């Protein structure tokens, strides 16, 4: 009995670790996109390179999260990057969103979540 409970607890902790790592990864990806846009707007190589650095960090965090969790758990969280990028663009890039764009983001999020399922 105790053995089963312990195994389940270990699985839950692994899942939580996977989610934490992929969440961090997604945040780095999203900010990396903002940096890239800043960088290409003014051809500012500091921000372009910073974007690549953040992307590299995001990729590393993602690889770690795959060690802990299944794709079907990780991909939906990767999908939320489309939401973060939309909000960050509103704040930092002065871009605008509309209903069609938000609908599109929603469908992409659902699609990305489903694409990893068997």
């Amino acid at each position, binding site marked *: 009995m105790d053995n089963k409970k312990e195994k389940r607890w270990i699985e839950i902790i692994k899942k939580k670790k996977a989610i934490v790592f992929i969440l961090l990864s997604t945040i780095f990806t999203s900010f990396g996109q903002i940096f890239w*846009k800043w960088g290409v707007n003014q051809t500012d190589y500091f921000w372009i390179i910073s974007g690549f650095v953040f992307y590299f960090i995001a990729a590393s965090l993602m690889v770690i999260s795959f060690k802990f969790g299944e794709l079907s758990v990780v991909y939906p969280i990767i999908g939320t990057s489309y939401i973060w990028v939309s909000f960050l663009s509103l704040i930092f890039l002065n871009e605008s969103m509309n209903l069609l764009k938000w609908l599109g983001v929603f*469908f992409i999020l659902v*699609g990305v979540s489903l694409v990893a399922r068997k």
Partner: protein
Amino acid sequence: MILTIILMIVSTLIGGFAALIIKKGTLKLEISFWETIKVFKNHWIVSGGILYLISAIIYLLVLRKEDLTFLYPFASLTYVWVCLFSARFLKEKITFIRWLAVFLIVLGIVLISLGR
């Protein structure tokens, strides 16, 4: 806009292919410090890295002219290509759910293009 879409299709195709060959390169790797150094000697991983860089540069060139909220969602096409590549080259089956996912991603991209 047509040019933008074509360039994003090209960029995501290259990126998706890069992911595939990087995956092929990691299949034989173990996670240990010495294996990590060997990453740079792994032809598949290095090639994948270069392809990824090319896809990123195309993306950046297009990003100069377009809004991020319009362009970034196109990146999700990468998942569509990986899906199709896996079916073709890795003999993975595309289930109904995967087709549904592909449809939703494309639908999302169409909506965002309409909302531009």
